[in-house]
């Protein structure tokens, strides 16, 4: 295995483009090292992007949004009070991944590139309408986050392409987001179901809504029908019922060691309802 | 004569008896006496049994004394985790 430490993303992409065998980018390593250790994937070339200065930065964008470098750890995000105030749901999705120790290493972009439908960090990104910057042999492009996952363990990235970071839009007025997941324990599990909700309100009434489900389909899934179910409502009981129904209806889960089809389908509705209420309270200025 | 109580799984090996009277002043003599009287019991005893004499389990101790009026139970052998 060759270990590379490029200092620019362009160099990183070039190494990957040249490489003949299996290539992996190393940021937090919390997936790559597990695969290495269990002999699932032993890369021929391992490209550590942490020597790239921009990869480690959390910065504000000109329009009041945020830019999270590809090697920023979950702990660094959680420690950024302004980011947490803007996007508590997005950050809590990231924060739920693994232990304190894993938080010291794991990255949002890594979570996305691992391609797991159960990735806790991803639903919040999609709900917030984030994009990622992809650099590759053909130059740079900005891609909506929901276009990256392509199936369990798969992404739409081409050979030699690397994500440099995530762009989060400006929070704006009267907005709130939330992420909830269901796990059997209180920590340390992979999501059985995950749900992110991002809302904007006019008074009590929902004017924008994005609902995203994790672990109930081959990829993290934006569910427009679920968002529509609560548009123009104040999340009264009937609206929440419609939201839960739409969320459950969008599920195409599998039976596996972590949950059953029936369970995932039901709990997706439960979580959508609960997350929407939290997002609503946050949009109203609450700190729930 | 000591009275030896067999667990029911052993009774078929001892002509259906639940209680067998055996001569013996020690656990070892009692076990030997049992096998002499009922050879069918040999594999079970060879596999290992615990013996309770008057309520006290005395595993693997063939020299433990048995009085004529002692109550002897054969039990399945166990150790633990």
């Amino acid at each position, binding site marked *: *295995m*060759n*270990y590379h430490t490029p200092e620019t993303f362009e160099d990183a992409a070039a190494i990957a483009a040249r490489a003949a065998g299996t290539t992996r980018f*190393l940021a*937090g*390593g*919390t997936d790559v*090292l*597990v695969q*290495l*250790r*269990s002999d699932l994937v*032993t890369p021929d070339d*391992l490209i*550590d992007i*942490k020597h790239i200065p921009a990869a480690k930065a959390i910065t504000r964008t000109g329009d009041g949004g945020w830019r999270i470098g590809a090697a920023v*750890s979950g*702990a660094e995000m959680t420690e950024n009070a302004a980011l947490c105030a803007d996007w508590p749901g997005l950050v809590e999705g990231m924060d739920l991944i*693994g*232990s*304190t*120790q*894993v938080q*010291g*290493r794991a990255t949002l972009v890594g979570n996305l590139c691992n391609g797991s439908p159960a990735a806790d960090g991803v639903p919040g990104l999609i709900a917030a309408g984030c994009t990622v910057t992809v650099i590759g042999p053909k130059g740079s492009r900005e891609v909506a986050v929901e276009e990256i996952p392509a199936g369990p363990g798969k992404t739409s990235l081409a050979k030699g392409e690397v994500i440099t970071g995530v762009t989060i839009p400006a929070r704006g007025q009267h907005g709130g987001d939330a992420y909830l997941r269901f796990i059997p324990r*209180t*920590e*340390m599990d992979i999501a059985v179901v995950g749900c992110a909700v991002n809302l904007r309100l006019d008074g009590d009434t929902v004017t924008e809504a994005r609902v995203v489900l994790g672990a109930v389909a081959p990829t993290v899934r934006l569910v427009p029908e679920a968002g529509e179910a609560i548009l123009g409502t104040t999340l009264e009981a009937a609206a929440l019922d419609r939201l839960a129904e739409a969320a459950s209806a969008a599920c195409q889960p599998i039976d596996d060691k972590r949950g059953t089809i029936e369970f995932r389908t039901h709990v997706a509705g439960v979580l959508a309802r609960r997350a929407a209420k939290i997002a609503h309270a946050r949009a109203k200025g609450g700190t729930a | 004569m000591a009275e030896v109580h067999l667990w029911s799984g052993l009774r078929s090996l001892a002509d259906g008896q639940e209680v067998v009277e055996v001569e013996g002043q020690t656990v070892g003599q009692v076990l030997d006496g049992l096998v002499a009287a009922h050879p069918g019991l040999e594999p079970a005893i060879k596999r290992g049994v615990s013996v309770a004499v008057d309520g006290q389990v005395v595993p693997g101790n063939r020299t433990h004394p048995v009085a004529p009026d002692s109550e002897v139970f054969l039990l399945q052998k166990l150790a633990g985790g």
Partner: protein
Amino acid sequence: MTKRIHVSTELNGDAVDFLCDPRETLLDCLRDHLGAMGAKEGCGTGDCGACSVTLDGRLVCSCLVLGVEAEGKQIGTVEGMADGESLHPLQRKFIEHAALQCGICTPGILVAAKNLLERNPDPSETEVRYWLAGNLCRCTGYDKIVRAVMDAATEMREAS
């Protein structure tokens, strides 16, 4: 065999270096190349926390860090907790509260708890439990561990 890489790093304040295969984890390097056996491998997948160390002050699982990544970093392990003969309050409280039985998880838990108290000197029971959720202990049921951490925090606050 892959060519081995030279790594210069700092372990508990001392400059050290070692040669390693790039596939070797920091945990492998600590234990097999630097002789620091305090960090343990319980799972190799970041699920048990027995290998907890700090890397530039950040709590990590050393099984999820490559040895080559330690270049130029500061590593903190359980071996660096006591100041000479004087134990860290957490170390003393773990003994006092019987917060260890077999002790295999203890080094990782001590490193993690020290990192917590450096950030949050007055944690609630719930905060302690969630901070330590990545440190499995199979012997104690965590009760005495949580008590020891809370008690050490109290003592450290009173002393400061």
